[in-house]
């Protein structure tokens, strides 16, 4: 194991104010189970899970309440004991509505009446949800199955199902396992705290993943502004065997982007979509996800809780909270001592890629890395005006696009021109809008173009399928 400095700097990128000092030195605090949980069936990009419970049902912590619905999908488990109050559409962290299970965690089933079977009653709590596995003797298939059963998905952002990622399609081999510890989003410190406090779990997770992936080389990518995390990883991995390197990355947003991390660590470039990292022999996993894999295998503990950074200048006491999945934002804020001042904006995630939400009555998901409450002083609000062609967006774009061109094309409703300008390559990192002196909502324009292109492709596919059926 050695520590190296990344030699490969991607072009573009920006330097937002990181504001990490608010929560950086706050130890992870475990939050008690709140009285109500809102567990969304849509935990990630891809198909939402199919709900398996109905109002009135009693569920146990760890019980499967939503089953996989398609290939790019993960199952959902109840993160606490309780009674299903309702199954209804709720606003999710990304602002869209999806089915959610509302769980009353205070309710317990009445003792079964004399003579009745106790089938619906809850077994006493405690004990592992899944039988612990010995990773050394378990087969690759057993380990993969465990990752899937544990409902693990990428905890960095998009939430790609981890079992899918760890099982490359035939003909593709993982040569490098890249651990994403960059956490380049402003304010967020959840991954940082996990690296400091759960380093041995990360190491175990890496060993399990190496076994599943057939022994790839390992690159642990951390930005240079987190020396303590680098030291913690160095200590945890000091005696590991095989090709393992800690790669210190330059501080540059969006260094945490999968494609840029692959470039920074092993100098490979993922081709344009639909290519995936595995096409260049890489699998990138967030450090939190790796720790979750260790828990799922060694302890039999599915992914039921995660660390979320609650921060921003409107929060009384910013914290890194280990909370059960589905904890409402209002409960997280209350656990942080409430609001210091009225927030003007509430953001699921970080300030660069997070979603502004309209209410605190939203449950966390497996991908909720942060919750930010920003006062009026921290919220910028300007009217956008005409592009002056200054080229800042072009120089900031880490994907080498011409965002000015794309945003003008979208303004003119010319989606074709945006597509020709490779808008589908856009990773929506926000670097273009961040630096735009005309306050143009360039990232939003890219998103709009991508959505309409996706909708068109889906419509074309449906049409082709219908035509094929006619024949």
């Amino acid at each position, binding site marked *: 194991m050695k520590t190296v400095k990344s030699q490969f700097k991607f072009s573009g990128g*920006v330097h*937002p*104010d990181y504001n990490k000092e608010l929560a950086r030195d706050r130890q992870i605090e475990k939050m008690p189970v709140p009285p109500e949980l809102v567990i969304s069936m849509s935990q990630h990009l891809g198909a939402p899970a199919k709900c398996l419970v109905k109002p009135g049902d009693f569920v146990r912590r760890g019980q499967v309440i939503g089953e996989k619905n398609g290939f790019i999908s993960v199952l959902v488990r109840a993160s606490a004991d309780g009674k299903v109050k309702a199954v209804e559409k709720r606003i999710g962290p990304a602002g869209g509505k999806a089915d959610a299970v509302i769980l009353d965690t205070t309710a317990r089933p009445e003792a079964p009446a004399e003579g009745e079977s106790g089938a619906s009653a809850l077994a006493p709590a405690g004990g592992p949800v899944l039988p612990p596995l010995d990773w050394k003797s378990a087969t690759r298939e057993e380990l993969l199955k465990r990752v899937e059963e544990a409902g693990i998905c990428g905890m960095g952002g998009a939430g790609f199902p981890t079992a899918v990622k760890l099982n490359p399609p035939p003909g593709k081999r993982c040569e490098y396992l890249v651990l994403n510890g960059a956490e380049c989003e402003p304010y967020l410190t959840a991954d940082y705290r996990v690296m400091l406090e759960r380093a041995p779990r990360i190491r175990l997770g890496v060993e399990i993943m190496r076994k599943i992936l057939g022994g790839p080389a390992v690159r642990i990518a951390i930005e240079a502004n987190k020396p303590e995390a680098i030291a913690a990883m160095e200590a945890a991995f000091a005696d590991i065997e095989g090709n393992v390197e800690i790669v210190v990355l330059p501080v540059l947003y969006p260094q945490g982007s999968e494609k840029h991390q692959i470039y920074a660590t092993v100098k490979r470039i993922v*081709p344009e979509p639909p290519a995936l990292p595995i096409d260049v022999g890489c699998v990138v996993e967030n450090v939190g996800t790796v720790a979750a894999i260790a828990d799922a295998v060694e302890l039999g503990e599915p992914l039921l809780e995660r660390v979320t950074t609650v921060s921003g200048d409107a929060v009384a006491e910013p914290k890194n909270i280990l909370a059960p999945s589905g904890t409402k934002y209002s409960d997280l804020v209350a656990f942080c001592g409430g609001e210091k001042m009225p927030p003007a904006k509430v953001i699921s995630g970080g300030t*660069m890629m997070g979603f502004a939400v309209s209410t605190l009555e939203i449950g966390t998901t497996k991908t909720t890395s942060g919750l930010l409450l920003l006062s009026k002083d921290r919220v910028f609000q300007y009217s956008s005006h*005409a592009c002056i062609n200054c080229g800042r967006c072009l120089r900031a774009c880490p994907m080498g696009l*011409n965002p000015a061109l794309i945003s003008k094309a979208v303004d003119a409703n010319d989606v074709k021109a945006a597509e020709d300008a490779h808008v589908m390559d856009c990773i929506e990192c926000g*670097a273009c809008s961040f630096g735009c002196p005309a306050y143009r909502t360039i990232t939003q324009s890219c998103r709009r173009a991508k959505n309409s292109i996706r909708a068109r492709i889906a419509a074309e596919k449906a049409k082709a399928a219908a035509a094929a059926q006619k024949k």
Partner: protein
Amino acid sequence: MKPKETAEHYILSSSPHAHANSSVSRIMLDVILALLPATAAGIWFFGLPAVWTIAVCVSTCVATEALCRLAMGRDSTIGDLSAVLTGLLLALNLPAGIPLWMAVVGSVFAIGVAKQVFGGIGMNPFNPALAARAFMLISFTGPMTTWLKPFWWKTPAAMTTATPLAAMKKLYVAECAAGATPTPDALSSLPGVSDLLLGCMPGCIGEVSAVALAIGAAYLLWRKVITWHIPVAFIATVYVYSLVAGGAPAYMQVLAGGVMIGAFFMATDYVTSPITAKGKLIFGFGCGLLCMLIRQFGSYPEGCSFAILIMNSITPLINRWTQPKPFGAAVR
């Protein structure tokens, strides 16, 4: 568009939720600040007429901008300072002694015709100040080519003279055509190196002082308002061309005339120059080449503004040629 507020009064908007705090008005202010040394030098050498020309151009441009937006029923844009900058740039590209009513006509043309007719900031195909200068050069050829001597008030008998470029053209192209070298006597009529650098020579108000322009240019580069591509390509082309073509010394071609102000302040105008680094290099090269072709073969002694305007017109084409390659496309 303004993000809307919801029932709970949380502001909803698309990411990102952070901004670098840059603004169009700050950029324009930076360019205006960068022009102040050259402005001061112009006033130092040409006195009150320079002050009046600058004042008239700036105020007329701002007034025209305000009136045009009002007439079009659109939001006022004078706050972005682009009209102030256009006025200042136009004034710095005029001879100090120009009748003020002509400066007014030029300013109205710059904002009214060259900018607002196309939709205002960001939409104009040509640099407004240069378009107005070209318009004035054709409309008012005499006054636009009558040059006050630096410190003209000290020589009341002969207040005006030819520009060094005109003198050079006469000397090298007409009188020394057959390969003869100019006599030392004839050379003494041209400004020396220190006068060229400091700007003690006849010319437009803002173009004369290379040192003052270089200070401003350094500020713009430091503030990352401009990149090096256009100025370096422009000036290097002029320099290499004049080395190869012979005639007047190359440093004179760079320092006497509009190359310095053109390369750093006019050709780098965002709206009318290419957006990619490669495009900027092509643009700067084209400016330098056309400028020298006009100086050598054209009937005008100076071709800087026409060169930039011609390159403005092919900027969309250069942009099309030089679209950036996506990050992932490199490996295809």
